[in-house]
């Protein structure tokens, strides 16, 4: 093979540092050719190698008795009883979505689906965590429209319901939006598939769509900081085909019923390169590839392109010897390409041939295992002052403040988004978007999986450690609020350039906080993804460790939602209210101040209150439940009124500072609607567990009546809450 000589310039274009290139020379004992250099560059990119984060990620707890498989495989696996497991993961598609919002978001959904069904699970739920720039930024509306229709376009077509997510806005994301997608699937515990290539001589086969020149260097792009000339990178955008993905899901699940698969892995970022290297590395084997046998879509493709293509909807499998015909028949029934492109060896090397000639010959371990690990310097984020109780004089009364908050970008209803997602397909959506966690029934059973995605970036920016803790705690709380037992989390850590010590400090702090919360709440991390270099022209996004939580409801008859059905129920506030306004939405949206330390997360209290709430929900003492987070108690109560289409009264305690009590964002709190008959039992249980639970109001009427405020009608609140996003998208802001 003749390839151009490797110049320092070519090395740089591949995103490899001088030191990394020296390392490659040492590993090989010779110069790499261009194909080999391309392979190193994607395998050692931040996206594939986690070189800046790996050291810190190891601090996250990953075990619990119900965890079947933690991080390291395509997705995490947890036991949900009755011989079934839930398999889930979250992943970023930030940069592609900024460049081409529709396709970027769509292929993000496609990729995360493949991570889940590649392990033998039928995908049953999709979630998406979206962070956009300032609503008034000229690009925002276009990005929101494109991302939402891309997510819908893909998820709706494959027929997996998109049931939950998060959508917030902040100018820190003006030049770098975040699009994180999560998928949850269900499998039989004894039919989980892993991705370790084993069995010398076993065929390596390719299935799915053909390979084109899509997205070459997508992985390195995802690891590079943006500049104004990023538009030049446009041709690397991949286009998704959800129709082929749907066929691939059905074909793979059908094939998995037969006993012919040894290992299976989707071709995600860095395509055939990362899938083949990772499979061989996990199995401690080698692979020989006849690369010219890969089904190609375009003419004149060269080995470099075939190895680095990020064409979508493709899978790599290791089959048992002699089972290719059986597998081919299934793939062809579904109209998919199928080709045997190599076999497993025991050499520990990846040997790639192109029409008989060796195009690359690399040792597996150093390429995939021994990629560099950096202990990058970090400085902790300087602490901010707490703001509790009074925060100075407000420009409006609490009634208007509530209306402002209900219609502010972060709290306004996201109905405009989720109504573009088919959230009911598969016929098991028991709680639709709009509540604390969505619930999908496990098909054919009376169990449910509760799913949620959470993070409060403004807390993380103010104090990464507290913010990391809070994100985990909020996910936990949202699962508890529907009556689920929280099982485990996946996560996607979105940060700026890790080569800047203050960004590294954010990452380290957030991971520390997450680890502490996961431990205290028995809520381990089973999968995740890191997305760094989320910055434009030196301005980083807010640190955003999105948490995807999954919980189990064993009996759907013991589930709660946000809506109560009748008047005269007692509203019980669980948890301590100190009026913490630091970092609150009240402070930002009403007072115009982005300051203060975020609310403290008291993990033992969090645990105690959550366990109590789950106990009383399971004991059927609760008719509605909502956790309190953004906007505090009054916003939480207003949201419940809107969900119930019924009013309520709220009594502000004499000793409280009203604004702080109404809008403070103290953590570990829930608001419950409880029948008067059940109140005694509930109070007794609270006392027994040392939990503060006090009645603060009553349900009923057509308005929200708060001590000292003019009643606020449901209609007025609804108009504010539902009106903002449609108006924005219609161009009205």
């Amino acid at each position, binding site marked *: 093979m003749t390839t151009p000589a490797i110049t320092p310039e070519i090395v740089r274009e591949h995103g490899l540092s001088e030191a990394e290139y020296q390392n490659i020379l040492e590993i090989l004992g010779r110069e790499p050719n261009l194909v080999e250099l391309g392979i190193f560059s994607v395998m050692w990119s931040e996206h594939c190698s986690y070189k800046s984060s790996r050291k810190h990620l190891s601090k996250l707890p990953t075990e619990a008795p119900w965890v079947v498989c933690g991080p390291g495989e395509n997705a995490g696996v947890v036991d949900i009883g009755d011989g079934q497991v839930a398999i889930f993961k979250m992943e970023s598609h930030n940069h592609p979505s900024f*460049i*081409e919002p529709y*396709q970027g978001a769509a292929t993000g959904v496609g990729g995360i689906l493949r991570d889940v069904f590649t392990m033998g699970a039928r995908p049953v739920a999709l979630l998406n965590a979206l962070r956009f720039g300032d609503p008034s930024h000229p690009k925002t509306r276009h990005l929101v429209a494109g991302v939402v229709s891309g997510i819908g376009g893909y998820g709706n077509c494959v027929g997996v319901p998109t049931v939950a997510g998060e959508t917030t806005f902040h100018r820190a994301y003006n030049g770098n939006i975040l699009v994180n997608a999560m998928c949850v699937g269900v499998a039989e515990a004894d039919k989980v598939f892993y991705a370790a290539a084993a069995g010398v001589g076993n065929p390596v086969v390719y299935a799915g*769509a053909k390979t084109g*020149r899509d997205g070459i260097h997508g992985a390195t792009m995802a690891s590079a900081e943006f500049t104004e000339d990023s538009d030049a990178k446009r*041709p690397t955008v991949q*286009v998704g*085909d959800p129709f082929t993905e749907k066929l691939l899901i059905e074909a793979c699940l059908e094939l998995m019923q037969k006993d012919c698969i040894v290992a299976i892995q989707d071709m995600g970022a860095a395509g055939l390169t990362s899938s083949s290297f990772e499979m061989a590395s996990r199995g401690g084997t080698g692979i020989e590839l006849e690369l010219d046998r890969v089904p190609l879509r*375009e003419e004149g493709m060269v080995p470099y392109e075939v190895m680095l293509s990020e*064409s979508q909807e493709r899978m790599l499998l290791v089959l048992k010897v002699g089972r290719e015909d059986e597998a081919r028949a299934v793939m062809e029934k579904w109209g998919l390409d199928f080709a045997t492109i190599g076999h497993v060896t025991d050499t520990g090397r990846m040997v790639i041939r192109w029409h008989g000639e060796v195009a690359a010959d690399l040792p597996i371990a150093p390429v995939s295992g021994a990629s560099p690990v950096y202990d990058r310097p970090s400085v902790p984020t300087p602490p901010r002052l707490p703001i509790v109780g009074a925060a100075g004089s407000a420009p409006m009364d609490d009634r208007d403040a509530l209306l402002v908050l209900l219609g502010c970008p972060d709290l306004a209803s996201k109905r405009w988004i989720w109504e573009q997602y088919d959230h009911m397909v598969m016929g098991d959506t028991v709680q639709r978007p709009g509540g604390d966690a969505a619930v999908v029934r496990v098909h054919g059973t009376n169990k449910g999986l509760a799913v949620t995605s959470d993070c409060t970036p403004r807390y993380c920016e103010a104090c990464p450690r507290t913010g990391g803790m809070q994100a985990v705690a909020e996910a936990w709380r949202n699962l508890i609020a529907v009556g689920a037992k929280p099982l485990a989390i996946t996560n996607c850590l979105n940060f700026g350039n890790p080569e800047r010590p203050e960004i590294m400090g954010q990452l380290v702090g957030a991971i520390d906080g997450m680890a502490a919360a996961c431990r205290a709440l028995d809520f381990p991390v089973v999968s995740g993804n890191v997305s760094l270099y989320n910055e434009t022209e030196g301005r980083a996004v807010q640190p955003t460790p999105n948490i995807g939580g999954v919980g189990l409801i064993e009996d759907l008859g013991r589930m709660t939602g946000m809506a109560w059905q009748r008047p005269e129920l007692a509203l019980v506030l669980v948890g301590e209210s100190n009026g913490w306004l630091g970092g609150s939405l009240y402070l930002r949206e009403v007072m115009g101040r982005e300051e203060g330390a975020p609310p403290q997360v008291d993990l033992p209290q969090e645990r105690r209150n959550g366990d109590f709430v789950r106990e009383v929900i399971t004991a059927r003492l609760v008719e509605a439940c909502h956790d309190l987070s953004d906007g505090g108690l009054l916003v939480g109560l207003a949201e419940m009124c809107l969900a119930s289409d019924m009013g309520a009264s709220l009594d502000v305690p004499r000793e409280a500072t009203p604004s702080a009590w109404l809008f403070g964002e103290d953590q570990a709190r829930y608001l419950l609607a409880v029948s008067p008959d059940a109140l005694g039992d509930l109070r007794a249980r609270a006392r027994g567990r040392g939990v503060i639970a006090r009645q603060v109001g009553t349900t009923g009427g057509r308005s929200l009546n708060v001590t000292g405020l003019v009643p606020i009608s449901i209609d007025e609140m609804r108009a504010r809450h539902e009106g903002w996003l449609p108006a924005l998208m219609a161009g009205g802001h």
Partner: protein
Amino acid sequence: MKARVEISLRPGVLDPEAQTIERSLASLGFEGVEHVRRLKVIELDLAHQDRAAAEKAVEAMCERLLANPVIETYSISIDA
């Protein structure tokens, strides 16, 4: 003045719709059909009197709305 914009995918960009049409034609028994491509055409009437101005306006429309430059190219023809 009448304008016509033809929008096609950039070379190399996956067109699953065209692929599916091609396969479907084959399964309906049409033989020898290859390289199915799809284009979008948008026609519109313009109040402009001046051909050059019209062309410029339509070009601006393409850049801002009608075409997605990331994956598409376009060509404009003006018919006075």
